């Protein structure tokens, strides 16, 4: 099953994951990480630890993983790319919002990583709409 890490400034990731679980119930393999108080090196190390802690830890089988970032060009995006931006089993996507995470949980068992990323990016974009008159 595809895992995900929501990696953000402050408590955005923690709150997003909390709200997803409030809506859908407890979710396995959806975790968060804040950049608060961490140097770029430490942030990279934390992402590396999360990757290694996957269900296939110790085995040879790669676990497809997604890393959701709040802000393109920030320390989370830099650290995630430096850690695993060249790893084909990891997809890094910026601009995380609630619709994307709900889509992730809903679709992750029926898609491969690339297909899931396409669905989620589309869903994220579609969820940004001006409402009202």
């Amino acid at each position: 099953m595809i895992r995900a890490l929501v990696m953000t400034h402050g408590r955005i990731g923690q709150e997003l994951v909390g709200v997803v679980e409030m809506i859908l119930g407890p979710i396995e393999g959806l975790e968060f990480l804040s950049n608060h108080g961490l140097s770029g090196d430490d942030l990279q190390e934390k992402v590396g630890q999360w990757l290694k802690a996957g269900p296939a830890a110790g085995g040879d089988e790669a676990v497809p993983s997604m890393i959701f970032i709040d802000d393109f060009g920030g320390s989370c995006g830099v650290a995630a790319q430096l850690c695993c931006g060249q790893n084909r089993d990891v997809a890094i996507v910026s601009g995380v919002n609630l619709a994307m995470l709900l889509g992730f949980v809903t679709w992750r068992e029926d898609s491969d990583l690339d297909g899931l990323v396409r669905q989620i990016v589309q869903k994220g974009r579609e969820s940004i709409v001006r409402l009202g008159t």
Partner: protein
Amino acid sequence: MPVVLARIDDRLIHGQVTAGWSPRVRPTHIILANNDVAADAWQSRVYTSSVPPGIETSVLSIAAAAAALNRGDCGNGRAILLTASPGEMAELVRAGVPLARINLGGVHYKAGRIEMLPWVYVDAQDVVALRRLLDAGVEVNAQQVPGGREVDVDEALLARTEGRL
């Protein structure tokens, strides 16, 4: 090229620089001076791709950054100059780069460092480097983001910090 912001920040290029300071100081260039990043094509690409369009980025070793800034061959734009540590900024000043004022923007905790300010953790080497900057007549101002808390880094603060190391 005039350096409109010379900043010490161990996250190098990130939101505080691109979203926080850039609209304020309106750089045309960001010069990232760091030997490790300059020696690694992937790291250079990641940092460069984090910069908003319209701002050019150069990733240079400390020596190459000093040479380029001293030759004044970076064009007529306005540059943000970034190093990850006080030592690297002191090296640039020692190499003759004319910097009147340094922004101490963020150095995070790691083993061996103690808190000098809530956003600046230092070890003995960092204190020595900051003192070298002051001795060279450079003003060192600690501030994370525009409009945020500003602290003048002076000998008294360095001595107090050193006493706790």
